């Protein structure tokens, strides 16, 4: 018999003691390579572990995000924590429970099937045996590899999974505890700010140290290596003032000055690209069918985390310890090792919570700053916190994208051939591979980097994510032009290419429905045989009391859109109702999601709702402006949706306990929400807007053109 295949992260980290331990009577510690980003993953992991081990949830502590003695699960990203990390956790716990049961059966000279576990205690035919995990633990070697043989709990036997569970991390945040990395203090710690290199290749010209010291109104020192310049001091207020002043008192050469033209996605066409064709070649003639073609664009977006990034580091006795709120402590360790020319075994990286990141923000770079300074000041713990403006300007942006949709349409109005042609920068700017940490561009003697690669299709793709419609269309292809140089540094933001791609494809579907004279809901159902897709579309239409062929063009409108995230995670359909005059006011959003087995329903709804609101903010407000530099540098120049602008949102989970397979939900609503807003605006105005964001200026311009 072949050994069963282990879930990916368990296969990569098979030793059971990496996952589970019983450190003290009544206590279970489980380790996850996933980190808490405000998405509630630690709570969900505790639910999974408690169920598989048959212990109360209160016994389980979840440790996460240290590079020593923990599973390496890469990045906490892509809505994969539960879909893959949760499976690994569940199997590891099931295997551990089976080892204990086998051992207890031997001691008691009975069959394993005679035993059961209740809150950690072992029972034989319902009678207490006097044994529990903690009495048996000393005799059981967990430094063995997972077998994957233990059967996971059947859905009917789950007690915690599937129940809404209060987030374990929330109370501390409501009582103002020191939970965030920003609140960490190390003995003898100094504060630091970096004088940021304006762009890769820029060199320090002059430094007016006296002026910066005057601005600091307190003692500071300068630390420099190559073009990496930092200000360090005991008093945070002084280094913050100095950091702000340094912008005007340090000159640079080789400074790039991007123009407003470059902030638009149109600029990407005609740039140097790496081309790929995914799918069959595009037919050269229309075969007598109707042609459809439309172009959709979106600008650069900021993660705009509520808090600027923070990092701490100390280099002591030849060992570097780093504290970070990044999404992947292991990849960061690798990138730091390369940047600092230090063996990875001499580096420990700890995850500490920060504010929500939604992707690759400045966290890794802030950690690298702290590490670079710590190496220059051995022994001294260094804490760096970026200035607000620094986070906006220097965090990696989500790439601008231009998507051309071309379709051939049959006589019955349905598409038979579909092309998505995409121009985009790389969505994978994470450290490692071909990407440096920011400090690495300024430090001397750095090794040249290979060409960075886009996220592979096997991992859901980057710019191509969700460009392939799930609908029944005979021939489909993606033409991907990866633009190799972008005017701003780019990387991963929630859903990567899914939002612009779903916006393009689902607006195009509405345009085709309109041409065919069919209601958008009916049209989608007519080209979808996937039962789960149909179910979310039908459900959301019912929730919103969708009226087929409702008249539009009077300033109020409704739109629907659907996507299955990555075409393999959760299914989501969204209906948006809004009003437009000069501006868009969202009146109501409905969403139906099938995320397979849902570990924590309230947690999933929280994530789905957050995705709706963030996507609405992207659609209505957000674009990074360029004008001689990054001209979006604070909350006035990069506004996001406010409390009074957020609509009521109704979310329904479809069959959350019906399936054994959880499907990632965290990023599922962003694409459908964007497209539903686009379709609702078109319905309200009778004009199609294809360029994002849907600002007042764009709406006015479109209305004037009519």
């Amino acid at each position, binding site marked *: 018999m072949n050994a069963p295949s282990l879930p990916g992260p368990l296969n990569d980290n098979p030793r059971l003691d990496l996952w589970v331990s019983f450190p003290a009577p009544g206590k279970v510690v489980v380790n996850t390579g996933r980190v808490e*980003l*405000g*998405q*509630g993953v630690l709570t969900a992991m505790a639910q999974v572990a408690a169920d598989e081990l048959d212990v109360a949830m209160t016994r389980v502590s979840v440790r996460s995000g240290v590079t020593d003695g923990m599973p390496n699960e890469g990045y906490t990203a892509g809505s994969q924590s539960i879909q893959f990390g949760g499976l690994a956790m569940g199997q590891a716990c099931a295997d551990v429970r089976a080892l204990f049961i086998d051992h207890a059966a031997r001691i008691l000279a009975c069959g394993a099937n005679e035993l059961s576990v209740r809150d950690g205690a072992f029972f034989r035919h319902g009678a207490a045996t006097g044994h529990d995990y903690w009495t048996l633990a000393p005799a059981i070697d967990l430094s063995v590899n997972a077998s994957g043989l233990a059967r996971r709990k059947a859905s009917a036997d789950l007690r915690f999974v599937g129940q809404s569970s*209060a*987030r374990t*991390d*929330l*109370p501390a*945040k*409501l*009582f*103002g*505890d*020191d*939970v*965030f990395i*920003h*609140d960490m203090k190390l003995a003898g710690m100094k504060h630091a700010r970096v004088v940021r290199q304006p762009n890769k290749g820029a060199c320090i010209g002059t430094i007016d140290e006296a002026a910066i010291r005057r601005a600091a*109104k*307190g003692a500071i020192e300068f630390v420099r290596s190559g073009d990496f310049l930092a200000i360090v001091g005991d*008093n*945070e*207020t*002084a280094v*913050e003032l100095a950091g702000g002043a340094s912008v005007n008192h340090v000159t640079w050469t080789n400074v790039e000055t991007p123009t407003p033209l470059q902030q638009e996605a149109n600029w990407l066409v005609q740039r140097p690209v790496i081309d790929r064709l995914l799918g069959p070649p595009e037919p050269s003639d229309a075969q007598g069918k109707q042609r459809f073609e439309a172009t959709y664009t979106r600008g650069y977006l900021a993660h*705009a*985390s*509520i*808090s*600027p990034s923070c990092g701490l580091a100390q280099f002591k006795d030849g060992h570097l310890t780093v504290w970070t709120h990044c999404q992947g402590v292991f990849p960061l360790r690798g990138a730091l090792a390369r940047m600092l020319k230090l063996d990875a075994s001499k580096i420990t990286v700890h995850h500490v*919570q*920060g*504010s*929500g990141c*939604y992707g690759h923000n400045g966290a890794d770079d802030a950690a690298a700053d702290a590490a670079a300074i710590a190496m220059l000041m051995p022994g001294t713990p260094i804490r760096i*916190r970026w*200035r*607000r403006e620094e986070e906006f300007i220097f965090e990696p942006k989500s790439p601008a994208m231009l998507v051309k949709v071309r379709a051939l349409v049959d006589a019955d109005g349905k598409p038979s051939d579909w092309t998505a042609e995409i121009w985009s920068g790389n969505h994978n700017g994470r450290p490692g591979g071909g990407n440096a940490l920011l400090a690495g561009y300024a430090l001397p003697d750095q090794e040249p980097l290979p060409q960075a690669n886009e996220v592979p299709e096997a991992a859901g793709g980057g710019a191509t994510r969700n460009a392939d419609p799930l609908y029944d269309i005979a021939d489909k292809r993606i033409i991907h032009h990866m633009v190799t140089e972008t005017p701003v540094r780019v990387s991963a933001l929630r859903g990567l290419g899914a939002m612009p791609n779903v916006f393009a494809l689902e607006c195009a579907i509405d345009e085709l429905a309109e041409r065919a004279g069919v209601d958008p809901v009916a049209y989608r159902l007519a080209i979808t045989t996937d039962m789960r897709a149909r179910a979310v579309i039908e459900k959301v239409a019912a929730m919103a009391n969708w009226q087929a062929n409702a008249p539009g063009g009077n300033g109020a409108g409704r739109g629907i859109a659907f996507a299955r995230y990555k075409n393999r995670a959760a299914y989501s359909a969204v209906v948006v109702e809004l009003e437009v005059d000069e501006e868009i006011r969202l009146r109501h959003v409905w969403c139906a999601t099938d995320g397979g087995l849902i570990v924590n329903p*309230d*947690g999933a709804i*929280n*994530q789905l*709702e*957050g*995705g*709706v*609101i*963030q996507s609405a*903010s992207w659609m209505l407000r957000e674009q990074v402006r360029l004008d001689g530099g990054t001209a979006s540098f*604070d*909350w*006035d120049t990069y506004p*996001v949706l*406010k*409390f*009074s602008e*957020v609509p*009521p*949102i109704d979310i329904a989970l479809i069959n959350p306990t019906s399936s054994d397979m959880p499907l990632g939900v965290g990023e599922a609503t962003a694409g459908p929400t964007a497209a539903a807003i686009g379709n609702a605006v078109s319905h309200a105005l009778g004009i199609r807007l294809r360029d994002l964001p849907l600002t007042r200026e764009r709406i006015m311009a479109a209305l004037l053109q009519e």
Partner: protein
Amino acid sequence: MKTFDFSVNGKPVSVALHNEDTPLLDVLRNELGLMGTRFGCGLEQCGCCMVLIDGAPEKCCARPVSIITGKNVTTVEGLGTPDAPHPLQQAFLDEQAGQCGYCLSGILISAKALLAANPSPTRAQIALALDGNICRCGSHNRILRAVEKAAAVMRGA
């Protein structure tokens, strides 16, 4: 060195500073070790640093400590404790209102000020009162529900 006397959460404090323009936020966090009030922007734009100064909600990241001499500052640490939570904190727990939670200290303070001035706000009034607080995670609707709930509890409804 200059000394500044004021009170925080009902307790008198005295801090000696070289720079009398040091923002109140830095004093709370770095001199008094009260980390509940968060830094978000330093520009009075995001509301993470919201505190009550003599009962009025104020962003304190750019407020020099010198101007609060003699005044009473309330921070999130002054609201309640896990054993005796403020009704707002309890309502936020009940509604699971928050994701990363970084914005919550400031939002709790803004909400407390609102409910002191208007014990029965409509949802629209709550939203308007929180427009000075940014939540990037999209926890808005839960937060609005939690404030409504706390208002009802505080009214004894």
